[in-house]
């Protein structure tokens, strides 16, 4: 596509290969608890990319922006802050699972998560795992999964972090994080608010009208160790957002969308002998209102209340063998303007096993089967292994069968829903090579994914659009990641994180690449610290995409390169203040990720970060 950029990118990779450092990547402290423990324990043969809260603060508060600049996931965004859907490894918008503290939060209505309805300021860390994960995470984990996590620290700790950011288009971003801990108690509270007039100019002279948005998220994690064997933890989130949908032309009908979502999880962990049991109950409330014409008060809505009960029992058969069963019952009551009211109950049983053989080889196995009256559930599996050949080189392999269940809209939409739909199924395999050399880490993953029974809404012979199991898609590609850091003369600290993805995702019947799946995507982030000074340079390259199913290149969206630059200075005796500024899109690229939906040109923000 863009040959010059690819050359530069490969150049960076090669150069980086000759640099080295004595630094090691920091391993998480044992005192830090992550409720989505399966992400660490059952990712054998897979790579997990984790973005810490300090990386999150280097990006806009909306999840789309953070992931777009730091991961291989491609995003289709209807203008800044508007509806945004991912394509992870060439899959469709509902084939990326999003987990909140291990709980699947993809919408019951359309199976997707709008990545601009997530405020990243509410989380301690965000992780991304490529490839199928339905055995552990259920529906939608086909292209990969995104994990929004709250960590709990059981150590003596009191920490405040206040981050304030103000920028072009009256964009305000405030994030407050409070951590309090002892060896028995832990509290993690995050409050985040983001708003913007979002009235940026278009390259063609127009203006982004009716694009304003605001959202507030409160996320609390609380843990208590009752004794050596028992502990209780509570996680809770409330999200309240209102977003107007921007107009392409001034005379168009103005609309808006409101979300009010809450997520609650209570868990009790108990250890006895070689067993660890975790009992979880979760309650999710997903509620949206869509105002189809702002001149009127009327709206359509959807509301789904989901109650989840989960029992997770793991057993250490031996020092090097663990068995784990997870039983989950998910009950959803959903209603909506065109849906009526429908109940859905899904029972799932999963069996996991992992085995460490010697110091250089481990493997894991996983199986899952669901029982529900709503659709025929396939038998799912996952198998993964890691072999270390030397200190510098290891190989990872993983294969899995995954699925995406039909949604409420697919099944129950009035006079269009299709009760006979089957889940979408995916059979995939991947092989990764991991190179570690001092502080340099390079991973290259090749994968193949065959997706069948893809659900697609098509006009029937009577003209009414209905969902059918129609398409088969064959996806293969390469994904690579590079991390490197080095300190020169104890003063100059550099770090580099880069990703590159090459994706072929084609309709089996026609042989055409899916629309809005670029062949190439690359990201790069370079940090440089000198004494109290900190700078960050981010790049995003997205290759051209087809917008027509027949791959008619006349309508392609052009490739684009976007760069952001930030500069900060730490003040105070213990450097507890950081004052800085950012130039977003400093190349002033004119670009759109969806046809007719321009993104902003060069714009600016100032920030203040305060730690206590």
């Amino acid at each position: 596509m863009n040959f010059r950029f690819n050359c530069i990118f490969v150049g960076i990779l090669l150069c980086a290969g000759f640099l080295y450092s004595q630094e090691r990547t920091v391993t998480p402290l044992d005192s830090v608890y992550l409720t989505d423990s399966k992400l660490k324990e059952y990712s054998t043969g897979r790579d997990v990319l984790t973005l810490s809260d300090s990386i999150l603060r280097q990006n806009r508060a909306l999840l789309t922006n953070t992931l777009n600049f730091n991961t291989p996931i491609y995003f289709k965004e209807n203008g800044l802050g508007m509806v945004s859907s991912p394509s992870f490894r060439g899959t469709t918008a509902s084939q990326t699972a999003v987990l909140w503290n291990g709980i699947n939060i993809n919408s019951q209505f359309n199976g997707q998560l709008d990545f601009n309805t997530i405020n990243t300021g509410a989380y301690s860390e965000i992780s991304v795992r490529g490839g199928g994960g339905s055995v552990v995470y259920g529906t939608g984990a086909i292209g990969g999964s995104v994990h929004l996590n709250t960590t709990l620290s059981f150590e003596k700790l009191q920490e405040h972090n206040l981050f304030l950011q103000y920028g072009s288009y009256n964009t305000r971003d405030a994030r407050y994080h409070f951590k309090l801990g002892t060896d028995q108690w832990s509290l993690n509270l995050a409050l985040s608010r983001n708003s913007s007039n979002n009235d940026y100019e278009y390259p063609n002279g127009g203006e982004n009208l009716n694009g304003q948005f605001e959202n507030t998220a409160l996320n609390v994690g609380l843990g208590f160790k009752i004794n050596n064997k028992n502990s209780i933890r509570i996680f809770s989130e409330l999200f309240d957002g209102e977003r107007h949908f921007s107009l392409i032309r001034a005379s168009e009908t103005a609309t808006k969308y409101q979300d009010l979502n809450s997520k609650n999880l209570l868990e009790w962990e108990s250890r006895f002998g070689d067993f660890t049991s975790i009992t979880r109950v979760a309650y999710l409330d997903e509620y949206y209102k869509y105002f189809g014409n702002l001149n009127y008060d009327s709206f359509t809505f959807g509301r789904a209340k989901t109650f989840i009960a989960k029992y997770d029992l793991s057993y250490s058969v031996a020092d090097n063998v663990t068995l784990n069963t997870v039983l989950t019952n998910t009950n959803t009551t959903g209603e909506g303007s065109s849906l009526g009211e429908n109940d859905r109950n899904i029972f799932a049983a999963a069996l996991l096993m992992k085995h460490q053989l010697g110091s250089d080889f481990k493997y894991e196995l996983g199986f899952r089967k669901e029982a529900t009256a709503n659709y025929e559930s396939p038998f799912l599996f996952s198998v993964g292994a890691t072999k270390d050949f030397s200190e510098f080189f290891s190989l990872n392999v993983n294969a899995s069968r995954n699925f995406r269940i039909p949604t409420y809209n697919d099944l129950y939409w009035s006079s269009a829903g299709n009760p006979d739909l089957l889940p979408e199924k995916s059979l995939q395999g991947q092989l990764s090579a991991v190179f570690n050399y001092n502080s340099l880490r390079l991973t290259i993953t090749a994968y193949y994914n065959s997706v069948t029974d893809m659900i697609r809404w098509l006009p029937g012979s009577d003209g009414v659009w209905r969902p059918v199991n129609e398409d088969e898609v064959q996806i293969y590609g390469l994904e690579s990641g590079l991390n490197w850091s080095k300190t020169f003369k104890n003063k100059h600290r550099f770090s580099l994180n880069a990703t590159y993805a090459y994706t072929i995702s084609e309709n089996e019947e026609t042989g055409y690449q899916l629309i809005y799946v670029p062949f190439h995507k690359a990201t790069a982030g370079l940090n440089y610290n000198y004494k109290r000074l900190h700078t960050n340079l981010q790049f995003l390259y997205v290759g051209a995409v087809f917008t027509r199913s027949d791959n008619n290149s006349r309508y392609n969206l052009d490739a684009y390169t976007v760069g952001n630059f930030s500069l900060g200075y730490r003040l105070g005796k213990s450097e507890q203040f950081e004052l800085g500024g950012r130039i977003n899109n400093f190349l002033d690229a004119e670009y759109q990720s969806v046809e007719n939906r321009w993104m902003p040109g060069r714009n600016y923000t100032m920030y203040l970060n305060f730690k206590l």
Partner: protein
Amino acid sequence: MKINKLSLLALLGVFILNSCSNDDDNLEPLPEGDYTDGFFVTNEGMFDGRGTVSFISDDLQTSDIDVYSTVNPSKSDLGQFVQSIFFDEDNAYVISNGSNYITVVDRYTFEYIGVIDSELSIPRYGEVVNGKAYVTNQGDFSTGADDYVAVIDLETLKVENTLIIGNKIDKLEEEDGLLYIQGSAFNDGNSINVLDPTSNTITTTFTTEGSLNSFDIEDGFIYALTRKDVESTDPLEKVAYLEKIDLATGNKSNQIVFSQATSVAKNLTIEDDTIYYMIGTSVYKIALSTSEEPSQALLTFSGNSAYGFDVEDDRIFIAQGTFDSDSFVEIYSLDGSLLKNITVGIGPNGFYFN
């Protein structure tokens, strides 16, 4: 039907004007422009795209997939979801229901003339009576209570009056100086509102038994295709009716009760005393007076979803409902044989004849 009136007029003309001298100077000059001899296809476009208009010549030999951009490359586009076109004298008015504006072009050259872009809210179809355009607007989709007809002064291109109809409205047809408005949208609604343009009031409202899909007017009668839900294990099953309403007396009758099916009769149009309609992708034709359901289809369209449909000048026009790439239309002769398959834009929904 239009042809029918024209030929009647021509016939009358022969009798009346027979005695006049055959003076060529009295004839109107033929319109000039690249698009004089042919027809337009309105293409809705993709959800985030722009609608387009395709042109196809009468001899079906030449076509232009996006005639507006060809002629007016520097003008702003036709808007989201090009819904329909109406004509008045030398002008064509292209309605965008997603962008709430109407682009005015020369119907023969397709050169941009102007735009009507205020006081429209999901405009659908238009007709011109006495120099004023009457355009149906759906406003808030969830209710018909706010649906209105915008009366547009075609000299100033301004909406000079809005007439609230009070039920869902869509297509409209002019007959003997009155406007007959389809009081249903997407099969929701069961009335035909009669608007008198001289008083700008609804003088009569006819109601149909089933929910109204489409109608046409011929020889003092409304012929309407309607449908009703039925008890069935398959919730999608319906039964369709051909209802006939006497314009003078308002008397109603069910001319045909079709057999129950998941895909029922739709898209009624009358041409040369023959009713044409579709079931699924098949076209049927029956005589105006027939009360029997035909046993056999006239033709079956090669696409999988028939979207736009029309019968004009001894030809049948069907457009394929493809919304993710350029689509096609097929033109058939009245005996059902395929004349030509021609590529057009995305989501073609209607045919407009020069």
